[in-house]
């Protein structure tokens, strides 16, 4: 139907028709997304491919990461096949609104603006900034950081957050970008590093020999699964899967694997 519409050269007319068709389609789909998925035996899930460790492609161009594993988990629990749709941060919500994807699992944070256009599941993964250091180092509170060197990226949120909570005699080593910050820590030039879980997870994945682990939490803003508005059945099913995965430790295991830290308490 859409192809015949775009063939019409008068743009305004085509646009009006297309939006009418879209409205009709979404009306027909409302509350039916779950049924349609189960009928088609395939679920389309939007995932990132440019954001390790949540989503990236490996050497064979196969998507991998926490979000991808989550997508596969949802599909498996639904008993359907998964079709991964690569999205970027900017277009992930439009993909959902235009029904090019049934779910968005793409490090999506919840805020008021987004809640106006889409629904959110319970949180499935943490997204946080934290201090990382060698496993052998005793670092249980920010006070323990006194006199220690810490690598941070200049002007990044971690830098500012750390300034608020750490003692004044912490020896900040500020670098231009995340790569230099991580390189300094990996080379042993600093004792600790403050960075986002995404960057730290990538560091741990690429440098398995580096002895580093999560030490102190700086700031927390967990990831949620995005669902089209008014799909209560699908939302309930997704929440059920997340709750079960939290209970049996799957969520913690995934978080540990990709982010170096268990998921802990996540908002429902």
């Amino acid at each position, binding site marked *: 139907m859409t192809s015949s519409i775009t063939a019409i050269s008068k743009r305004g007319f085509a646009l009006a028709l297309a939006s009418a068709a879209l409205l009709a389609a979404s009306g027909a789909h409302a509350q039916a997304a779950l049924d349609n998925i189960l009928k088609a035996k395939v679920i389309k899930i939007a995932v990132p491919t440019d954001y390790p460790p949540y989503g990236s492609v490996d050497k064979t161009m196969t998507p991998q990461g926490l979000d991808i594993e989550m997508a596969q988990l949802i599909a498996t629990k639904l008993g359907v096949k998964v079709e991964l749709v690569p999205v970027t941060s900017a277009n992930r919500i439009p993909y959902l609104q235009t029904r090019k994807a049934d779910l968005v699992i793409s490090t999506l944070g919840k805020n008021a603006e987004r809640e106006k256009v889409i629904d959110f599941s319970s949180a499935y993964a943490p997204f946080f900034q934290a201090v990382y250091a060698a496993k052998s180092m005793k670092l249980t509170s920010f006070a323990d950081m006194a006199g220690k060197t810490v690598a941070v990226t200049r002007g990044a949120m971690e830098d500012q957050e750390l300034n608020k909570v750490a003692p004044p005699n912490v020896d900040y080593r*500020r670098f231009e970008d995340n790569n230099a910050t991580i390189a*300094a820590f990996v080379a042993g030039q600093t004792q600790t590093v403050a960075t986002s879980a995404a960057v730290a997870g990538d560091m741990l994945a690429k440098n398995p020999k580096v002895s580093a682990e999560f030490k102190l939490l700086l700031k927390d803003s967990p990831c949620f699964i995005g669902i089209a508005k008014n799909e209560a059945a699908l939302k309930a099913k997704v929440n059920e899967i997340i709750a079960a995965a939290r209970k049996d430790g799957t969520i913690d295991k995934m978080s540990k694997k990709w982010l170096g830290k268990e998921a802990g308490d996540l908002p429902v």
Partner: protein
Amino acid sequence: MEFDFGAVLVDWRLLARGIAWTIGLTAIATLIGMVVGVACAWARSSGPLWLKGIVGAYVELIRNTPFIVQLFFIFFGLPAAGLKLTPETASIIAMVLNLGAYATEIIRAGIEATPKGQIEAAVSLALNKVQVFMRVVLPPALKKVWPAMVSQIIIVMLGSAVCSQISVEDLSYAANLIQSRNFRAFEAFIIATLTYLALSIGLRKLLNWAGPKFFFGR
């Protein structure tokens, strides 16, 4: 667009410390780098063959690679070989190596421009090898190349801005840190620019005075 220099100058302590680091790094690198340069220039012009080879390789290696790569190698690369240096030490080593290599070639040019007869005259006066080099060959050589030498030292000082990349808290680090906090990039960098300009002019004046006074008379 409105400018607010006060927002930057409020952090004058950071800037002052940055200037002190820039001057300190440059001073140490210049002193040691000059000694390296003189020693290597001697080795390259009248040292034994094997030493000529080693010094030649060093000079070519440093002069044909970027300073920032040399610095990154020393700071990020050497720890893998078990050598961990503070950012400040790594910067000084990189600056000394860099200035040393350029100074070698500059001083060697001066030495080669010294007439042979002058050296033969010195030898015939029964001066030994060290005396000939230190008293007869080196002073006129330095005098001939001093302007080039001064320029090279200033290049090294300006190049020290790169050391902020490995978290040395020099002047450009201070400017960068301030602008990342208050987003006053124009004001922060114009202040840094003018400060570097003043430092360069001051350093040139100082060296033009110090050269004749301490190194080659008159």
